[in-house]
């Protein structure tokens, strides 16, 4: 021991530790990847949506020239197939853009070489493309989503999303909260030890399985209950209910965490004042955990809105603006999956449309998540 006492002046100078700095650098980069992800999401969604809203897009009309045309010709002979042209449409054949002035049966009068393109000759059977424009207002308020005819109103998709989410919430919130209260306040240890893992299993099952469940179990059940003529094979109710079931564990587990975070001392305080178990649970514990529960609810809504596979499987394809839960309707997510599932050309309007919907979805869920986090943070502060 005396060695220290006899030590000369201590050497307190810093030692070199290059390894520590390298490690720190590396893990900082790892953390920064998340920022890249967000930038990626915003950039991708933003850029493609911008394309969707502003840039020129050429939609196949399935029309061809009935005969070859010369560069000077202003009346174009057209085939019968495909969609109808209207005056004011901007069309493209090959590299040349034209503006439709008038349509007369199978003839269309055009201004040649519009948008500073060169008028040129076109062979017979050359494909006609039509220019598409979508403006934001139409997108947000339009009640029809029919890309084939140029209607890009997102409301049917949003409506279906909200309907499904509402149904899901109606199932998940009361059940989830009740389960949470039961587990945290009533269930004996042994029961909880069994139930909690079961609920976790429920939470761990992939959504595609829930989709299967909705389609092959819940839908037939609904049809049996309400009649096959009332309930369509693909319907929002079934998807909503099953999403609700899917979300129960989320709600119950987050709520239970919040309830359990309420210190035991509060319960004892309550009992000590002569409160019953119910009074303790509902009037002391639940209010104390309220913001945690609220956060769970908000997150649950966000999850429901973003849920994809169940609606893709069970809610049906095809946008449909309806308030009847037993009808089929396509949600935003369902639409994205359906459209992207096929082999899409990267330039098609359908392809860019999923980015616009994606952006909307992203913004909605982001808002909800941020609110939820805020609430959680406030809640945590109370007990720290």
């Amino acid at each position, binding site marked *: 021991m005396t060695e220290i006492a006899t030590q000369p002046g201590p050497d307190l100078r810093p030692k070199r530790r290059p390894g520590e700095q390298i490690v720190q650098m590396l893990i900082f980069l790892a953390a920064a990847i998340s920022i890249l992800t967000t930038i990626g999401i915003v950039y991708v969604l933003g850029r493609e949506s911008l394309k969707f809203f502003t840039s020129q897009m050429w939609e196949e009309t399935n029309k061809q020239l009935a005969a070859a045309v010369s560069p000077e010709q202003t009346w174009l002979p057209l085939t019968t197939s495909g969609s109808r042209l209207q005056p004011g449409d901007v069309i493209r054949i090959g590299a040349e853009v034209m503006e439709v002035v008038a349509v007369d049966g199978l003839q269309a009068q055009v201004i040649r070489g519009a948008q500073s393109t060169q008028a040129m000759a076109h062979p017979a059977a050359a494909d006609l493309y039509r220019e598409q424009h979508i403006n934001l207002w139409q997108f947000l308020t339009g009640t029809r989503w029919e890309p084939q005819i140029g209607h890009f109103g997102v409301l049917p998709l949003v409506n279906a999303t909200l309907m499904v989410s509402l149904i899901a919430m109606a199932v998940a919130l009361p059940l989830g909260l009740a389960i949470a209260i039961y587990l945290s306040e009533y269930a*004996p*240890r042994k029961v909880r030890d069994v139930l909690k893992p079961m609920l976790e299993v429920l939470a761990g099952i992939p959504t595609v399985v829930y989709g299967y469940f909705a389609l092959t179990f819940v839908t037939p059940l609904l049809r049996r209950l309400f009649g096959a003529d009332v309930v369509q094979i693909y319907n929002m109710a079934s998807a909503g209910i099953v999403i609700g079931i899917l979300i129960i564990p989320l709600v119950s587990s987050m709520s239970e965490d919040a309830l359990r975070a309420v*210190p035991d*001392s*509060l*319960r*004892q*305080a*309550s*009992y*000590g*004042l*002569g*409160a*019953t178990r119910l*009074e303790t649970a509902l*009037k*002391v514990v639940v*209010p*104390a955990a309220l913001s945690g529960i609220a956060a769970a609810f908000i997150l649950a809504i966000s999850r429901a809105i973003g849920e994809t596979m169940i609606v893709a499987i069970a809610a049906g394809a095809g946008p449909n603006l309806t308030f009847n839960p037993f009808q089929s309707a396509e949600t935003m997510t369902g639409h994205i999956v359906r459209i992207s599932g096929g082999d899409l050309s990267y330039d098609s309007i359908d392809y860019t449309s999923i980015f616009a919907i994606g952006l909307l979805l992203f913004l909605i869920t982001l808002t909800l998540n941020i609110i939820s986090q805020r609430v959680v943070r406030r809640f945590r502060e*109370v007990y720290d």
Partner: protein
Amino acid sequence: MEQPLAIEARNLNIYYGDFHAVRDVNLPVYKNKITAIIGPSGCGKSTVLRSFNRMNDLVPGARVEGEVRYRGKNIYDPDVDPVEVRRRIGMVFQKPNPFPKSIYENVAWGARINGYQGDMDELVETSLRAAALWDEVKDKLGQSGLSLSGGQQQRLCIARAIAVRPDIILMDEPASALDPIATLKIEDLMRDLAEQYTIIVVTHNMQQAARVSHYTAFFNLGPQRAGMLEEFGPTEKIFTMPEKKATEDYITGRFG
């Protein structure tokens, strides 16, 4: 001089599952006196204290044998409702645990669930005054109880306990989480409260027991680590002239 009894343990035995935690305790608690329970860690002080208002019912596996007589009735009789018992025998805990409600609500809540019919504002004020807290909080009754300092929170908890007008207040190390000054405030408060209430206080701090209590019960670990009442008597006697060697060793710090 025979004092009137507030509550009394008779042949009390408490078990946690198979573990005999407390053995054969006979402990009288006198009315309007402060009775301190001291003893080494794990000797069952808290266990005995909780048995006085059936808080042990909430501990899984806990079992009580023997009697705790309160107003001529054994509170463990099957026809006694623990909820009733707990209203009359309040409790204050080691860590201040106000509800995350307003100060006012903290005090009013217990009375409200117990169907209090009188003037609530008045009750809140009386209780806060009795807990020597009124002056400090009267201008901010709407603020959260958690916004108070530790010592104030503990007094709030005392006010809350008082508001349901208990006979007896049990305190389990009520000041052990507080700094010395807050501790002294609580001790002064306890002495004032003893004029109206009977207080039983568990404390690790012998000096605190010495300072504050009228009677002291010294618990000790008996055979098989079962807690037992080693000595009971007026505090002054216990601390200046204990009868048992074990008590002497404990209070002079020569134990173990």
